[in-house]
């Protein structure tokens, strides 16, 4: 509850949402009849009252300057009665109540360099974490990867009928997966590939040895023999998750030579059809190669091409692969299959193929 403390107001919570709702929304709140896809980036919502609300979806960069925010506000003031919404994939939404205004918004927003799109069967905004722009645990740089992919797949964002279904790409700089990667159609995740180094003085200065011993999921960290206020790492057990470094600056895991990018595909979140699915590993490692990430871009394009070619209408990427079988996916894309692809952790048994049915590719 709101408190007036010696240092000022505390625990005020959040302003009530009602004041932020467009008048048409307020009037028809909870009483909407249906929606239609009008054109790329534009959805028409029709209320039971007959009222109409157009939403215009706008792609944003990972960071926005206050200057740009003000520019976007200007447009919203001009056409959207001063209301604006951001989305769960970090796009911006403008509102209109007639098609003419829709077109004006599109024109003005795009003239400022912000693309309108990402609705219906399109590439959605690419969720990406901060990577090397701000994070200490990043094994790769999410924002520049996202940028490179946007450039390569720009048309899929701007159209709404070139893909069999929506395509959700997300990028995380490390295994913490802040970039909402693990249930995405295509996920790019930064990986380390060597055990952390141990800097004895830093461990002693900043870290709790018992906490470290407990925190490693593979039990690879133990008190150092002969020097139990530091630790040693069993390199055979460590699987480079970086959790220990997140806790302890004395265990740096970055390694410009071996860090890189992994690619995962086939995840989805909604309960529609067969329900939520995890993304699955397809490429364990590609090198870090900013700013244009050619290896990553090529791999993603190859996967998107596969999707466009083999999906049935209205199928998410993972649904397509599950229908035709992963053995065929590897064959058709030419992506090499390795021991890394085979799960070897707690739930591995569930992933092993029982019985003798599969395609002899």
């Amino acid at each position, binding site marked *: *509850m709101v408190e007036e403390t010696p240092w*000022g*107001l505390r*625990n*005020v*919570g*959040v*302003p009530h*949402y009602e004041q*932020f709702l467009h008048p048409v*929304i307020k009037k028809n709140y909870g009483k*909407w*009849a*249906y*929606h239609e896809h009008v054109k790329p980036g534009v959805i028409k919502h029709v209320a039971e009252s007959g009222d109409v609300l157009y939403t215009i979806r706008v*792609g944003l*960069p*990972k*960071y*926005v*300057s*206050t200057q740009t*925010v*003000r520019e976007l*506000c200007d447009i919203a003031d001009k056409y959207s009665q*001063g*209301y*604006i*919404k*951001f989305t*769960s994939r*970090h796009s911006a939404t403008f509102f209109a109540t007639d098609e003419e205004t829709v077109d004006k918004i599109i024109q003005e927003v795009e003239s400022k360099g912000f693309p309108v799109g990402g609705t219906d069967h399109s590439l959605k905004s690419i969720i990406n974490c*901060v*990577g*090397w*722009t*701000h994070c*200490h645990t990043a094994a790769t*740089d999410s924002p520049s990867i996202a*940028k490179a992919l946007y450039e390569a797949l*720009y048309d899929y964002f701007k159209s709404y009928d070139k893909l069999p279904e929506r395509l959700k790409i997300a990028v995380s700089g490390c*295994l*913490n*997966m802040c970039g*909402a990667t*693990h*249930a995405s159609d295509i996920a790019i995740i930064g990986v380390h590939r060597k055990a952390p180094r141990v800097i004895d003085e830093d461990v002693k200065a900043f870290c709790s040895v018992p906490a470290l011993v*407990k925190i490693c999921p593979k039990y690879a960290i133990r008190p150092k023999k002969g020097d139990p206020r530091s630790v040693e790492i069993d390199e055979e057990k460590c699987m480079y998750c970086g959790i220990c470094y997140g806790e302890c600056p004395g265990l740096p895991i*970055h390694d*410009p030579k071996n*860090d890189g990018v992994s690619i995962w595909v086939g995840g989805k979140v*909604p*309960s*529609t*059809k*067969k*329900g*939520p699915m995890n993304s699955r590993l397809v490429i364990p490692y590609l090198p870090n190669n900013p*700013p244009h990430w050619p290896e990553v871009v090529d791999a993603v394009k190859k996967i998107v091409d596969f999707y466009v070619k083999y999906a049935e209408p209205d199928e998410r990427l993972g649904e397509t692969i599950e229908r035709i079988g992963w053995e065929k996916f590897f064959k058709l894309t030419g992506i090499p299959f390795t021991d890394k692809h085979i799960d070897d952790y*707690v739930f591995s048994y569930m992933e092993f193929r029982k019985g003798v049915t599969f395609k002899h590719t």
Partner: protein
Amino acid sequence: MSEEILKELEKGKWPSYVTEIRKAGYEGLLKVYGKALEDKMTHFIHGGMVGVKGYDAGVIGRMTDMPDVMKTSHLLRVIPPAGWFYTTEALRKICDIWDKYGSGVINFHGATANLQLVGIETEKIEDCFNELVKLGWDLGGSGPDFRTPAACLGPAYCEFAMIDTLDIYHEIVMSYIEDIHLPMHPYKFKVKISGCPNDCVAGAARADLAIIGTWRDNIKIDQEKLKEYPEEVIKMAVERCPTQCMKYENGKLEINDEECNKCMYCINLMPKALRVGDDRGATILIGARARGRIGSFLGWVLIPFMKLEKPYKELKDLMKKLLDWWDEVGNPKERIGETIYRIGMGKFLRDVGIEPVPQMIYRPRANPFWYYWPGEVE
């Protein structure tokens, strides 16, 4: 060299975050980041303890290993309004404050939910916050606390919304605001609220507790409006329906609602003709975590159906029970789903007093490794 790489990132059709950093004039960040791109390695390091008085969360402390260029670049997580709806007026005021104290760089929004103000020096945090809080803005979660929840736009303009996502979000933030500022759970606890099974805030994948609108009665079919959809779309729905409970004959669509599992697919395909039922509430999922200690967990069914009406007493009671239980038995750095997995779902249900129902599982156990509890055997 690093400047050249940065320039490359300002080219192209998609708006550039580098350009935005430049527009904000956040030179320090450009340099540290440029060097990272050049070295293929981050130059940020752990941030130490920073924050505002009275809170232990909401500020991510961040330092660099290039102190000559830029020593710190902390970030403020600000709780956004329900559904991320703003007025331009509100946004402009936030910008003004951020220009005054911070870098001018904003992350709209973080993947959990927060409005993130990126780049502020240690000594300016308190003043910056005090201006924000006077306008009604507060800090969001970080560390092992109750995190800022997320809610889809729901009833604002989506005809699928079966619960009032915005109101539930608001209520949860207001009820748990102290918990958001005081990390004292075994680990983070994330709540996400979606109005329907489409789950537009991805609670099934990314929330320790996902509240997802659903219905129990029949799908409403408008046979007239159905005609507005092409035959092949109708047939696709019938063919792809996961329970195969639809029939389309002589231009008429029938649904055997007894068999329908409320997956939402057909309704998505033909929102004009098909509407969700009237007996509405939510399914509550528990346990998602992106990369857990033993792999990713997706959320699973805890409460198949809960009516959700103001003041949401049943929901709040449930959340209290869950957090109390978890606080007691959870290990540090163990998300609640992992605690349940470790302790066993059956025992967990017993402990918190929730009735086991078959909806919680795909299928019953295949192994005979269960427990009998005192009183169950002679």
